Structures are given as structure tokens and as C-alpha cells.
């Protein structure tokens, strides 16, 4: 235990993971929808900090740009659209709470069992692998070029789908 905390990185991990967990708990345990969304932002930011600790600055920046910068804003807009109930208590029934709690416990147990049960069977990333952004760019546009172009098709489908779904009423009118 002393060994674990002698590493400053581990100490930072405990602090950031704790703050992230607090924010995540705020998302599920809070009462007002707008507060839940803001807690979600804190949780996203905490995950970005964890990526920094994992020495993946690109993932950290992508996390901030996409999750905090875009998806959270989209969620906030969505809450403002529905308006009236944004600041009112969510009021979930006890039956649903019990169902969700059971599902969470079962899934957590399955995850822990899956991780510990398969220890040693998952491939381990070789140490000394070049994880720089240049190497990532070369891999993404070289070896994984086809998958990368497929991702652009996915983005296109998402864009067209969003427009089709949200503009339907206007077309019929």
C-alpha cells in the first residue's frame, strides 16, 4: 500500500478517480436534470484527466473536444428544448430504482468476474510500443486506412440520419 502511493502518478489517479466517481454519482443520484447534466460534464472532464495520467494526451484532448465540448452541449440543448421539467425533480418510481440497482450490481459482478477470470488470457500491449501522435497518424492513415474511410461513412450516415429524422415534419407541411 505504501508502495502504491509512493508513485505520484498513483496518488493523482486516486484523487482524479475519486472526483470522477463523485461527479458520476451526482449524475445518477441527483434530483434536477440540469444538475445531472453539469455533473456529467465533470465526469467527462475527469475521464479526460485519467487519459492524461495514462499518457494518452490525444485521447484526453479528443475527450474534452467531443464529450465536454459537443455532446454535453447537445444534451444541454436537449434539456432546454424540453424546457418545463429541466429544473424539477426527476421523480423515478421505487420499482424502477430497484430494477436498475439490480441490473447495475449484476453487470458490475459480471465485469469483475470477466476481468479477473480471464487474467493472463488477454493480449498485453508490448512495452516500448510507439504511442506518439505521429505513429497514431501513420497507423490510422496507413494500415487502418480502410477502417478510417469506413468511419467517415458512419459519420455521413449519422449526419444524414439526424437531418432526415428531425426535418420530417417540415417536409410534410
Amino acid at each position, binding site marked *: 500500500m505504501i508502495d502504491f502511493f509512493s508513485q505520484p502518478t498513483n496518488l493523482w489517479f486516486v484523487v482524479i478517480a475519486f472526483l470522477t466517481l463523485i461527479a458520476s454519482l451526482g449524475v445518477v443520484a441527483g434530483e434536477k436534470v440540469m444538475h445531472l447534466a453539469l455533473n456529467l460534464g465533470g465526469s467527462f472532464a475527469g475521464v479526460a484527466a485519467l487519459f492524461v495520467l495514462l499518457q494518452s494526451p490525444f485521447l484526453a484532448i479528443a475527450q474534452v473536444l467531443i464529450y465536454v465540448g459537443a455532446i454535453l*452541449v447537445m444534451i444541454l440543448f436537449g434539456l432546454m428544448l*424540453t*424546457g418545463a421539467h*429541466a429544473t424539477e425533480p426527476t421523480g423515478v418510481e421505487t420499482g424502477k430504482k430497484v430494477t436498475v440497482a439490480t441490473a447495475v450490481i449484476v453487470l458490475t459482478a459480471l465485469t469483475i468476474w470477466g476481468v479477473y477470470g480471464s487474467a493472463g488470457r488477454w493480449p498485453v500491449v508490448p512495452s516500448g510500443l510507439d504511442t506518439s501522435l505521429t505513429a497514431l*497518424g501513420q497507423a490510422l*492513415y*496507413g494500415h487502418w486506412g480502410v477502417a478510417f474511410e469506413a468511419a467517415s461513412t458512419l*459519420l455521413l450516415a449519422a*449526419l444524414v440520419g439526424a437531418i432526415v429524422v428531425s426535418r420530417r415534419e417540415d417536409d410534410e407541411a
Partner: protein
Amino acid sequence: MPAVYWHSWLVVVLFLVLGVALAFGLLGLGSLFRPHQPSAAKKTPYESGAIDIVEAKEVRFNVRYYLFALMFVLFDVETVFLFPWAVAFNRLHLFGLIEAFIFLAMLGVGLAYAWKKKVLRWQ
């Protein structure tokens, strides 16, 4: 990882601390000097001096904001994908350039579709 990595992130932490300290520090400093005499009229949210029709929490945003946010998410992801390309540009040569332009063209089709569907127009 070299110490340089952690030192460069220390600057980011410093920025965060300074940013928060600036906001709270200025407000705290202001509260020391400004007079505090609240009245009902001072507490109303206002726009152009007009009396508000609904409570601030009941205001509903136009659905168009949501469409813009949705499109922003997609083009944001596109930007993030282009970042590694820009960094590795010197080693990717012509093939990488063509790939990036195919990627951009795909999203360009999406943009053209949004344009044609008048999603970008504010009515």
C-alpha cells in the same frame, strides 16, 4: 514517460487553478466593496427592459439549436480525426493526402445535403 510530459501538463493544471482563482477572486473582491441592497425589481431577469412573460426556467429553446449542436458533434469528430493526419503529414506522403481528401469529401456530401435540406438556414 519523461518528466517533460508531466511538466507540460503541470502548465495545464496551473491554467485551471488560475482560471478558477480568477473567477472566484474577482467576485470575492467585488463583494468586499460593492453595496448590497437587493430589491424585487433588481432580481428580475430582463431583456431590453421588457417585463418577462414566463419564468426563466420555463423558456424553451428553438429545435434548430439542437440540429446545429448535432451537426457540430459530427464535424467536431471530423476535426479530431484530421489532427493525427496533420501531425503525421510529413511521413504520409501523397497517399495520406488523398485519404484525407476522400474523408473530407464524404463529410462534404453530408454538408451539401444539410445545405440542400435548408438545415443551415435560420428562419
